[in-house]
């Protein structure tokens, strides 16, 4: 399969603190790839670097053959332009526009889409896919439960019909059944809509089961990478992340 995202030897620092060191990754088009790691390993930093919210100290990131981020500031695209290239991030903590209705949030997700009939069609698809959002379309997002807000955030990201969907801890703080539901939806999105998914998750078992390939991040470094099924069997992964 063709490579869609290439992360080449990137480092990120917050002041004097190194958050990511020499991270390299490759994501194939159409795959679900997951990144697992403990709190503070640098998972969210990596996703923020991909969308240009976090400047790189060294290295570069290439999307569909185009360099989108590099250590030289003028060679990097701004976040809104990276979004326009077809990368959508569902940020950690969801970051829904709480004072806007569900429908308005979806409208914002489709900000880059000019054709109103396309927007309406996609909204209908989202209401079919996440029926609870259809039922709450005129409600302020603030009034939604955590699980509903997570679905809202995913639906919002899908409104732009991205090529690459980045998900930052979609299961965080949610009841196990809801997490299962969200992960099955993610697999459907990947299979039916042909969206490449890059998933960051603390729930390693669920993430690796859903993924064809996985990376393990510790203290800002990639320490392991393999097929998802192989990582599930890996002794080190089992000890550290699967509680075996």
């Amino acid at each position, binding site marked *: 399969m063709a490579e869609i995202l290439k992360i080449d030897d990137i480092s990120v620092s917050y002041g004097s603190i190194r958050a990511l060191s020499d991270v390299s990754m490759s994501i194939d088009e159409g795959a679900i790839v997951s990144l697992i790691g403990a709190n503070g390993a640098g998972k969210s930093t990596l996703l923020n670097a991909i*969308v240009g*919210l976090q400047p790189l100290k060294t290295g570069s990131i290439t999307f569909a053959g185009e360099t989108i981020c590099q250590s030289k500031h003028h060679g990097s695209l*701004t*976040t*809104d332009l990276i*979004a*326009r290239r077809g990368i*959508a*991030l569902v*940020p950690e*903590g969801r*970051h829904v*526009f*709480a*004072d*806007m209705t569900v429908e*308005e949030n979806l*409208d*914002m*997700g489709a*900000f*880059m889409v000019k054709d109103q009939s396309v927007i309406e069609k996609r909204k209908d698809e989202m209401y079919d896919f996440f029926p609870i959002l259809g039922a709450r379309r005129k409600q302020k997002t*603030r009034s*939604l439960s*955590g699980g509903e*807000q997570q679905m809202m955030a995913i639906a*919002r*990201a899908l409104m*732009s019909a991205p090529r690459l969907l980045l998900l930052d801890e979609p299961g965080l*703080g949610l009841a196990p059944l809801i997490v299962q539901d969200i992960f099955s939806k993610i697999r459907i999105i990947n299979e039916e809509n042909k969206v490449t998914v890059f998933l960051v998750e603390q729930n390693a078992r669920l993430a690796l089961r859903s993924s064809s390939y996985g990376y393990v991040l510790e203290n800002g470094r990639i320490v392991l990478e393999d097929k998802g099924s192989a990582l599930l069997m890996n002794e080190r992964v089992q000890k550290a992340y699967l509680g075996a």
Partner: protein
Amino acid sequence: MSTVTLYMQYIVNGLTLGAIYSLIALGYTMVYGILKFINFAHGDILMVGAFIGLLIYNGLTGGEAADPGAWTLAAFFIAMVASMAACAVLGMLIERIAYKPLRNANRLAPLLSAIGVSFILSNGAAWIFGTQSRRFPYPFENEPINIGAITITPHQIVVVVVSVVMMLLLTFFVNKTRMGKAMRAASLDQATSQLMGINVNRVISLTFAIGSALAAVGGILASFDFRVYPSMGTMTGLKAFVAAVIGGIGNIQGAMLGGILLGILEAVGAPLLHIPNGMKDTVAFAILIIVLLVKPDGILGKNEREKV
């Protein structure tokens, strides 16, 4: 005149004043909503708007000498629209030159820059136009109309109608249009709005443009009562800022409500409390202090709490 009708008259007068405060308060609150920054040069933009409006109006009609009629009224609206456009450009330029380079600086830096811009605008106007105040001639016959015991002037009607139309247009814009919704999204969560492909720099420019255009309208409407002079923006701007805080800074409906409320309370409060004319302005600031003590987020402001 009975006390009741007297106070009803005060309320009508206050409503007129309040509508002007609302228009100006919107600029403060919209900019604060996105940048969390008080644009202290906003009051001076209303002064520039009033001068531009006056110059164009006088140029079109011959000013004081013109007899009010259809043409003067048309000229008045032409002058207003032209002034709005000029102030929109001015507002965007100020943001680009004086605030944007400081966006990642210490929070005090853009504030100081704004005060600097304020001085440049008011002193620049004094240099160009002189310090004497000018009258903005009424573009229509301003014969008072008696409704029962209350007197309403056509000027008051124009102020209220123009203000209401502007506020309805703004409400439509922020709730129904693509860019308007993007503006709300950017004020709720700037980073996330960028993830949607929204160019926040453009949204900020647009915010300054709209706020400044509304200030131009406010400045022109205010100049019938207050005349036009280089420092006219200082007190009116400050009170509009108070109105924005009373309504809940960052909240658009709050600015509209706060302006109207402040205008009415000012008009009613001064005679009620027997405050002499020269001290009238204290009412607005006393109200500000009370609101800050009782409900620091303003009437429509809310304590943001995130759902985890």
